[in-house]
């Protein structure tokens, strides 16, 4: 049984933070296997199968924010998480060979979440406070494949103001993951006590006054291309056995091609005396005496974000897969009279280096690093056409796999707006 959706703002209290005592209990089993109908033969993945089990046994206070017309929660509040580890187990069967077993603890923390859904409804579902649900380094679905696969249902949050609500989510959902077909079998009981107001929404304080002297530049992204290649091998000294990666070599190529988007640069005086007058501000900007912050945010097109992996294992057919991935953005910050460029952190996004074959994770290849860097002179940011180039390469040794990586990113920008605020004496 699920609650019927009603307009989320009907007959409830003021905007603010609400809490309800909630508990969940049950099991969610995610499983997958190679599917001939989806081309597993061509991909060399018909012998792949695997899965993991989630035990959403949460209990505590669920914090729900009421924004006036919608209800949302960010994580589970103080509901804690089940301590049972989430373990990915993936099996590779191939005629004439012993079965291979890949085991990985999934660094995730299950949470109960409420998000604004279509038509004003509130959608109740399960997510992860840390990390993403995927097959990790083992063969199986990517985080994007599983993004919508976990059970969810509409919930009438205002009804919780009037009475406790019990729900049961039970059933099976199929999902597709490239050459793999999967299923999520779930049976979860959820209980919510009365919703009560915890804290009224605080008034937003006004933004600080704008600096008197400033430079603002807006660009149109004509094109942004990015390419990362990773040559890897499963290495015994790195513990490849538990990932069934020993004796394998492979290449991961991640490409991103965005045909448009926006970019922006903001500069304010770096400290000390503030330049006065447009000419002085521009001069200070050109000379690198202003603090510069900026971002390049290309338009995301799923067709342009692709991760291709080819895995070779001695004496076997190997594995090939192409999977969609997240995009690439660039951030700018000034340092020592120049502007440093680097990719925006992708730690909060699905792993961009994983397709569905076994292989290294982003954490193995790049760790805390961004993988590429570049610089641009502040004066060049004032040109009508700006080209940003970033690059980087290196060796890596991670869990089970080691190798080399290289990244190049090129962004072509067309300036659309330049505002120089000269300030006052």
């Amino acid at each position, binding site marked *: 049984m699920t609650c019927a959706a009603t307009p989320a703002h009907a007959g409830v209290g003021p905007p603010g933070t609400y809490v309800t005592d909630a508990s969940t209990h049950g099991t969610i089993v995610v499983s997958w296997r190679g599917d001939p109908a989806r081309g597993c033969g061509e991909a060399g993945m018909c012998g792949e199968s695997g899965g993991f089990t989630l035990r959403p046994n949460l209990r505590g206070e669920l914090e729900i924010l009421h924004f006036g017309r919608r209800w949302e929660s960010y994580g589970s509040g103080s509901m804690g998480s089940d301590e049972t*580890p989430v*373990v990915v187990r993936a099996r590779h069967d191939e005629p004439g060979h012993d079965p291979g077993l890949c085991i990985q603890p999934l*660094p995730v923390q299950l949470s109960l979440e409420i998000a604004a859904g279509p038509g004003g409804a509130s959608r109740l579902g399960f997510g992860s406070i840390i990390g993403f649900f995927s097959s990790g380094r083992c063969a199986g679905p990517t985080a994007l494949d599983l993004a919508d696969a976990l059970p969810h249902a509409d919930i009438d949050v205002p009804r919780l103001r009037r009475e406790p609500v019990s729900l049961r989510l039970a059933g099976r959902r199929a999902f597709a993951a490239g050459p793999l077909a999967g299923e999520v079998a779930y049976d979860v009981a959820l209980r919510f006590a009365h919703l009560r107001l915890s804290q009224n929404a605080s008034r937003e304080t006004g933004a600080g006054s704008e600096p008197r002297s400033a430079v603002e530049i807006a660009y149109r992204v004509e094109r942004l291309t990015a390419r990362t290649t990773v040559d890897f091998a499963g290495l015994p000294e790195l513990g490849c056995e538990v990932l069934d990666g020993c004796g394998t070599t492979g290449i991961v190529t991640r490409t991103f091609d965005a045909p448009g988007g926006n970019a922006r640069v903001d500069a304010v005086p770096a400290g000390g005396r503030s330049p006065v007058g447009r000419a002085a501000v521009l001069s200070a900007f050109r000379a690198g005496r202003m603090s510069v912050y900026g971002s390049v945010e290309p338009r995301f097109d799923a067709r342009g974000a692709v991760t291709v992996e080819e895995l070779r294992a001695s004496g076997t057919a190997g594995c090939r897969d192409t999977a969609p991935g997240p995009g690439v953005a660039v951030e700018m910050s000034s340092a020592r009279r120049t502007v440093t460029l680097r990719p925006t952190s992708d730690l909060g996004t699905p792993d961009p280096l994983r397709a569905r074959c076994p292989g290294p994770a982003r954490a193995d290849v790049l760790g805390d690093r961004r993988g590429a860097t570049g610089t641009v002179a502040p004066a060049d940011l004032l040109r009508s056409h700006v080209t940003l180039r970033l690059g980087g390469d290196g060796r890596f040794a991670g869990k089970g796999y080691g190798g080399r990586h290289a990244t190049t990113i090129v962004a072509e920008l067309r300036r659309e707006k330049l505002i120089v605020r000269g300030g006052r004496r």
Partner: protein
Amino acid sequence: MRRGLVAGAVAALLTLTGSGDALAGARASGGEFGIVFGGPGRVVRQTQAPMAIQGRVEVEFHGDRASGCAFLGTCDTAGHIVWDPGPRGTLLVLDTVLGGHRQTDGVVFLASGLDEPASVVAQVRRGLDGAVATCADAGRSNAAPTLDPAGPGRLRFDLTGFGGEDLFATRCGGPLQADVARALPSPRVSLAAMRRGRLTVALPAERGFAGHGFAGTVRSSLVFRLGHPRRTDEAAPAPASLPVRRRRARVLTAVYRVERVTGRVRVALRGQPDPGRCAPLDACGLEGKVDLTARATSGEAALTAQGPATVPRSRFRAALGLMSGPSRGVESVHGGANWSGPGTAVQSQTWQTGGFCGSAIPARTGSLDISVVGRRVTVRYSGGYGDGNPLRGRCPGPLLSELGGALLSTSVPLRTFRARRIVLRLRRGNTFTAEAHMGSTSGDVKIVLRRLAIRESSYLDFAPI
């Protein structure tokens, strides 16, 4: 002697606030951990340094006749376990003074909430007349390696650490940490060099072990790279970016001695009937039990009430059950107990398809969780802590956390704690459905506590507005 740090940190982990002096002296709000040192002694210096970590420890093992595998049912068992500490951690070095003696201890807190936390992975095969059943499991590791005093100006790495669970604990069978402890690397390092930082400590090892039904090899490729240390014993100001209010908080603690623990617990186990659930952990057709004998020769317990110092002391006493009356304004009441003694845990199990496994381990420690809601106190006995987890024998089995939080429990009126001598009988068992196992717990454990003192302390708290 590492007892001070161990006791202190374990006490902190179990939220057992101990002496008021130590609590006030070591409230390290400047550290990343916010540890409240609750052990004996006074912290006089606290240093913290980031650590980059590479490598792992691997245990490769097989059933060994010379070590008694025929008796324990492990002759057809082989596997490997990999402990990976993750890419980073933080070293905390504490100088404490107790009875006029100064001692230095260290502990490495491994990153726990990041992309790649410390983990342990096990793959264990069990032969069945040509057929093989495989148990594959993995999990986060709560280990915290320590640095123990090892002569003047020297510290020794001890990977087995404290507080966390057995380094190699999973739901699969295999040797225990204690079985391979001698084969683990434990290099000595200079305390002065450690304080200077920017130090690389390698822990290479390839050593054999044998005993308790298994033999094998321990290999380590661990390298710890210490970054720049900084002192963190000065009380740090509250983060400037957050609006906070300062207030004085009061902590009232009733301290008890664990006079006696006696009793038994049985955990009856069987595998889940669904092959999809039991097969990954080799629990299909499994029937077994764990018999735990609980005994204590020493131990301590505490019940702590915490809240604003503006709330009258009498309400704190009422919240601890020491007197009648309201406890309004007291924000939290919690407690726990730890004991040590000559307990034992005996595992025995069989599989319908053939095969058996037996294991006997000392259950040297026990712990209670005490929670107060309204006028009732719930007491939960969840086995031991650290390597005293009674379910972690050499045979496969569920995690303690899968048993619903407690082996046995009881609920008593808060007024029970008004007496100086308290007798708790824990007889309420539990049924559980774990990932691959199901079963029940039953038993009868008697715990006698005697109140020794009531201690009060206060500290400056930063509370977000």
